[in-house]
């Protein structure tokens, strides 16, 4: 049974776009590194959702394979990213990105 017959691909698209925008907005609006991280994850998952939806739509499993890759990489990335954040927190006492300006030209 294909759920797409009931719900319709365009709804998935809308949801994915909404999720992505929520993620992007959160990324821009928030200053807390962990929240930003979560926003990025939301964006990633928006894309994942899209991939899965299209995979189903086209009846082509490769899209779902990509999703697994993405999730794996994202997990690894989170591990590294959180490690960095922990070390940042140890060094400067908070994880507000406004305090991270060492790259200033």
């Amino acid at each position, binding site marked *: 049974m294909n759920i797409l017959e009931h719900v319709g691909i365009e709804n998935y698209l809308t949801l994915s776009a909404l999720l992505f925008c929520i993620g*992007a907005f959160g*990324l*821009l609006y928030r200053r807390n590194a962990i929240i930003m991280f979560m926003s990025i994850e939301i964006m990633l998952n928006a894309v994942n959702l899209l991939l899965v939806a299209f995979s189903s739509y086209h009846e082509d499993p490769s899209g779902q394979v990509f999703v697994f890759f993405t999730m794996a990489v994202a997990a690894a990335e989170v591990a590294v990213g959180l490690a960095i954040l922990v070390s940042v927190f140890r060094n400067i006492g908070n994880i507000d*990105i406004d305090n*991270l*300006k*060492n*790259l*200033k*030209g």
Partner: protein
Amino acid sequence: MNTTILLLLFAPLAGFLITLFFGKKLGKTVSGAIGTAAVAISFLCTLSLFSQINAGETIATFKLADWFSIGNIKINFSFLFDQLSVLWLLFVTGIGSLIHLYSISYMHEDENMHKFFSYLNLFVFFMIALVAGSNLLIMFIGWEGVGLCSYLLIGFWYKNQDYNDAAKKAFIMNRIGDLGFLIGIFILGFHFQTLEFLEIKALLGKDLITPSLLSIAALCLFIGACGKSAQLPLATWLPDAMAGPTPVSALIHAATMVTAGIFMITRMNFLFDLTPEIQNVIAIVGAITAIVAASIGLVQNDIKKVLAYSTVSQLGLMFLALGLGAYEVAVFHVITHAFFKACLFLGSGSVIHALHGEQDMRNMGGLRKVMPITFWTMMISTLAISGIFPFSGFWSKDEILMTAFHANIPLWVIGSIASIMTAFYMFRLMYLTFFNDFRGTEEQKHHLHESPALITIPLVILAALAAIGGAISLPGNSWLNHYLAPLFKKHEAHHLDGQAYMLMAIATVGALVGIGIAYAKYLKKKEIPVADSEVQGLHKVLSDKYYLDEIYMATIVKPIYMISNFAKKYVEKFISKAVIGLGGATYALSIKGKKIQNGNIGVYLFAFIFGMVGFLVYVFVIRVK
């Protein structure tokens, strides 16, 4: 014949090298003797060539070596010995030997005497190349070479920066003419694909070149001649050139080098015959130069300056003759002029020698008794230059004036006035120098003496030639015209009719008037020219040479300096700033640009997302439309 030619060409060069490298070791007298001998050898060789050619043997072209090729034009070191060049060489080397002889005594006090002789020898060598060269480029070698020697010899006493200025001026003014000469060579070379005189002459009839271009070529050559022969507007270097030792003035700046322009035009007569408008230019320039220089000569007080302006003026007369197509007449006057002007210069040198360097005629006078040989030889030459019968100048000048009379009356009038002026200032020179009482210091008076034999012998020989030199071209029965006839287009000779005699009479009367005025002023009234500061009016204009030097200074030299300063101070700075500016702009951009990198991740993200959105909008919305 080849050995003779080689010897003729290279004896002076050998003399130059020997005196240059070994002169100091050989001592003054020996190097003087070597220098003189070198030129004398050339003279003897020329004499032998001359006798062959005069006897009707064919003219000789002598190829020494290849030089270089440019496109299809091959240029060789080759020499042409025909009537004209041999005749010219005859008096160049002849008078050259006499002046070398004279210099042995004249320059004996100078520590660099061997250098002097080596330069003189080098000059003779280049002069021979100039005269004997069979193509325009060999002539050009000589042309520039004599210019170089002139530079070296004018600035011979190089401790004095004024003399160096004079030398520099001579060289640069000559170079202006040389540029003209070079352009003329280019035009001829490009259209005829050869620079050989004889080949150009043969090709001229073949319509290889448009008449207007031919005229431009002729004009360019004439500009070259103007530079070398000190014609207006390039005349002002010659009087300054008197800074050199007097033998130099006699040899280079009176008898030989300055006549190179006349030689060149005579050599290229076939070309100038085809461009009557340029001939007119030549005649007019010659006439104007003759009268302008003569008028300046009226008021000069430096004995050598008088002679210098007289030379310019006489050269003007020769150009007048050239412009009228009377090449043999110009050649005739060149020869007689070489005799009497060399004699006059050497005589003035003798006077200067006796007075230990005094050149101002206001401080001379009464030298007739002390220096009889100098006086009499100079007197003969003065009579010759003034055109008194039967001295040589009479015949040659008379022929020029006669030609002018037949061609163009105004030119004849100008020429005649210039001749009257010549008679006046030459006798003014004689009266101020040799008559009345001595006006110099007591010490000078004490040392007054006649010059030694080495000085007087050349004087006597030259004076004799100045007296009888006219015999080579007597009206009606001219050996010279006959000798040179193969070179020139045939034109009818003037008949010795009543008109001719009348013209001679007018010329003689004119000369006598000039002499008479000089006599009345300087011998009768014993006038002495006033000091320079008291000169005024027209007299001042004349004695300041019509302000020609000042005009050139203000209109040419000063502006060049100004442009140079301007370019150096502003243009260079500007370009430099512009280049540095490019680097500076990059640097400034970097300073501004680095502010974008403010380290705020939020800003980066903002830029990133909106950049991405912008890009997507562009790709999917704007471009799709």
